[in-house]
C-alpha cells in the first residue's frame, strides 16, 4: 500500500507540464505506431523528389544542439577546466536524450526498420551515413556511460562508481573523437548530393562547417540550459563559469564566418549571396541571426555576465544552427519538377511526440536523480520572475 501511496504522492506533486508532455509523447508514439503499420506513403509527404524530410532536418539540428555534451566533456576532462564541471551532468543528460530522440526518429524514418541491425552487419565504409550511424550509436553508449554516475549514485550499484570514474577520461576522449566524426560526417553526407544542393550551401567544407557550428551551438545549449534550469529547477552554473564558457563563442563564430565566406569567394559564388532570391534571404538569416548578432552580443562582458542576455544570445545561435541544418537538408534542395515538400501533419506529430518525450524523461530524471547536485542552488523560490536581478543567488 505504501508503494501505491508513494506513487499517488508523486503523481500529485508532479509539475503539471509533465502531464502535458507525457500526453503529447503518447500521442506522438501512437502516430508512429500507425506509421509502422501503413508505411510512409500514407503518413508522410515524402516522395521521390524529397525522400528525406523534416525528420532528417530535426535529426541534424538535434545532433548539432546536442554538441554541448562533447564540447563540454572536452573542456572539462581533456582541457581540464574544472569549474565547468557542474554543468556536465545536465548537459550529458540533455545530450543523451537528444541523441536518443535522434535514434528513435531514425527508426521511424527507416523504411525497413525491421532490419536496422544490417547497419552493423553489412557496413559500407564509403558511406557517410554508415559512419554517422556507427558513431552516433557508439557515442550514445558513451553518453550512457558518462551519465551512469548520476543514475547509479544512490542505487545498489554505487560500488561501480570508482571503476566508472577511473576510465572516464579515455571514454571521454573516445566520445569527443566520435562526436567530431559524426558532427562532420553529417555534413559529409551531403557532399554526394552536391548536384541537388544550392551552391550557397553545397561545399566540400560542409563537414568542417557542421563541426565548427556544433561547437558553438553546443556551448550555447549549455548556456541556455543553465539559464533555463535556473528558472525551472532553481539550479544553475555560477555566472562567472558561464561567462568563461561563453567567452569562446565569438571566436568560434568568427572563425566560422571567415571559412564560410572565404569558401564562397574562392568558389566564385560570391554573387549568389545577393542574386539567389529566397535562397539569399535564408543564407543571410542564418548568418545575421546565427553568427553576426551573437558575435556582437557575446563580445560584451555585460552580456556574458547576464543570464538573460546570454540566454537570448544562445538562442540566436541555436536558432541559426537549426536554420542552417534545415537549409542544408530541406530548403536548399532543388526539385527537378518544381515540386515542394511540406511535412504531413503526422510527421510533425511524431516529432512533437518525441520532443515531448525528451522533455518528459529529462524532467523525471532531473526530479529523481542528482542531476543538479553540483550546481549552485537558488535561494529564492522557484517561481521567480526571469528578469529579477540575476546576482541574487550566490554568484
Amino acid at each position: 500500500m505504501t508503494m501505491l501511496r508513494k506513487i499517488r504522492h508523486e503523481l500529485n506533486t508532479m509539475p503539471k507540464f509533465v502531464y502535458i508532455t507525457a500526453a503529447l509523447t503518447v500521442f506522438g508514439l501512437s502516430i508512429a505506431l500507425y506509421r509502422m503499420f501503413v508505411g510512409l506513403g500514407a503518413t508522410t509527404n515524402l516522395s521521390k523528389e524529397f525522400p528525406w524530410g523534416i525528420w532528417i532536418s530535426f535529426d541534424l539540428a538535434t545532433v548539432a544542439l546536442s554538441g554541448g555534451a562533447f564540447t563540454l566533456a572536452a573542456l572539462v576532462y581533456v582541457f581540464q577546466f574544472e569549474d565547468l564541471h557542474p554543468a556536465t551532468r545536465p548537459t550529458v543528460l540533455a545530450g543523451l536524450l537528444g541523441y536518443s530522440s535522434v535514434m528513435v526518429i531514425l527508426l521511424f524514418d527507416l523504411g525497413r526498420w525491421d532490419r536496422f541491425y544490417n547497419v552493423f552487419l553489412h557496413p559500407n565504409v564509403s558511406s557517410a551515413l554508415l559512419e554517422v550511424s556507427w558513431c552516433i550509436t557508439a557515442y550514445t553508449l558513451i553518453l550512457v556511460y558518462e551519465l551512469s554516475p548520476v543514475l547509479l549514485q544512490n542505487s545498489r550499484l554505487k560500488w561501480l562508481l570508482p571503476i566508472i570514474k577511473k576510465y572516464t577520461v579515455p571514454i571521454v576522449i573516445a566520445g569527443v573523437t566520435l562526436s567530431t566524426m559524426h558532427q562532420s560526417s553529417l555534413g559529409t553526407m551531403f557532399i554526394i548530393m552536391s548536384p541537388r544542393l544550392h551552391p550557397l550551401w553545397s561545399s566540400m567544407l560542409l563537414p568542417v562547417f557542421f563541426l565548427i557550428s556544433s561547437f558553438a551551438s553546443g556551448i550555447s545549449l549549455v548556456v541556455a540550459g543553465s539559464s533555463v534550469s535556473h528558472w525551472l529547477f532553481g539550479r544553475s552554473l555560477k555566472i562567472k563559469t558561464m561567462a568563461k564558457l561563453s567567452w569562446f563563442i565569438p571566436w568560434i563564430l568568427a572563425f566560422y564566418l571567415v571559412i564560410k565566406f572565404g569558401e564562397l569567394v574562392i568558389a566564385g559564388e560570391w554573387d549568389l549571396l545577393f542574386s539567389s532570391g529566397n535562397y539569399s534571404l535564408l543564407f543571410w538569416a542564418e548568418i545575421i541571426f546565427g553568427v553576426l548578432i551573437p558575435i556582437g552580443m557575446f563580445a560584451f562582458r555585460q552580456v556574458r555576465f547576464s543570464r538573460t542576455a546570454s540566454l537570448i544570445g544562445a538562442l540566436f545561435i541555436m536558432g541559426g544552427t537549426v536554420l542552417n541544418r534545415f537549409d542544408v537538408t530541406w530548403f536548399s534542395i532543388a526539385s527537378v519538377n518544381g515540386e515542394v515538400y511540406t511535412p504531413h501533419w503526422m510527421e510533425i506529430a511524431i516529432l512533437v511526440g518525441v520532443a515531448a518525450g525528451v522533455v518528459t524523461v529529462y524532467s523525471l530524471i532531473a526530479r529523481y536523480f542528482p542531476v543538479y547536485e553540483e550546481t549552485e542552488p537558488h535561494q529564492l523560490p522557484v517561481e521567480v520572475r526571469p528578469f529579477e536581478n540575476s546576482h541574487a543567488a550566490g554568484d
Partner: protein
Amino acid sequence: MTHQPNNPRYGFLIDASYCIDCRSCMVACSVENNVPMDSTRIWIKETGITGTYPDLKRFTAPFHCMHCKDPSCVSACTVSALTRNDDGIVSYNQDICIGCRYCVYACPFGVPNYQWDEPLPLVIKCDMCFARLGEGQQPACAATCPTGAIQFGRYEDMLAEAHRKINERPDKYVQHIYGEEENGGTATLYISPVPFEELGFPIAGTTSPAYSNRLVTEGTPMVAGAMLVGLTGVYLTIKHLREEAERDRVEAAKEKAAQSAGEEQ
C-alpha cells in the same frame, strides 16, 4: 582512396528518335523482374507535345538505371545493398536494404524508385537483367523493343555506334551522347533528336560526386586516429602541467611555511 572505376562490360544505346512510347519495354521489364504493381524500373521521359497546331512534335525515351561507372548510390548506400560488379552492373540486394533512402537522394538521375505505400518497402531499380545475361539473353527491355530504340551490347560497341550515328546525321541528332561523361560516365548511353533537357533528362556534371564523397569518408579513420592521439596528448600535457604547477605551489607553500617557522624561531 582514388580508385579508378573500370569501363563497364555492357552498355545500352537508347535512341530517342526510335522510341514510339509503346511501353513494351516497361511491361517486359515488369514481367521479367516481378516488379510490384505499384512501381516500375523503367519509365518514359518525354518532351510532351510541343509546337502549335498543326506543327506539333513529340519525342519520348525510355529511362532506367544509368549504371554509372562510379555510382553515387553505391557510394552512399549505408549497408552496401547497392553494389557495382566487375561487369559494371549496379544491382540491388533487397534482403539487406534498410530503407534509409540515401540512394534515392544521392542519384543525380532520379533512378531509384521507392515503394512508399508498402509497410515494408523496397527500392525498385533496374539491374540490367543480369539473370538474363547469364542465360545469353539481352535485358528484357532491349530484347523486346519493336523498333530497336533500345540497343544492348558491349560498352565499346555501343559507344562507337553512338558516335557513328550522331556523326553520320548531324542534321538529325543533337551532337552529344548523354551518359558518355555525365556523372563520370555511365553504361547507359543516349542519343536524341532534341536537346536532352527537353526530354526531362537532368543536367549532370562530368564527375561523379562519389569521388569527393570517398575522399572525405575514407580519410575519416586517419582523422579519428589523429584526434585520439591528439586529445590524449593534450590531456596528458595539461595534466602534467597542472600537477607540476600544483607541486610548485605546494613546494612554495612549504618553503613559505618553513621560512615563517624558521623566522619565528
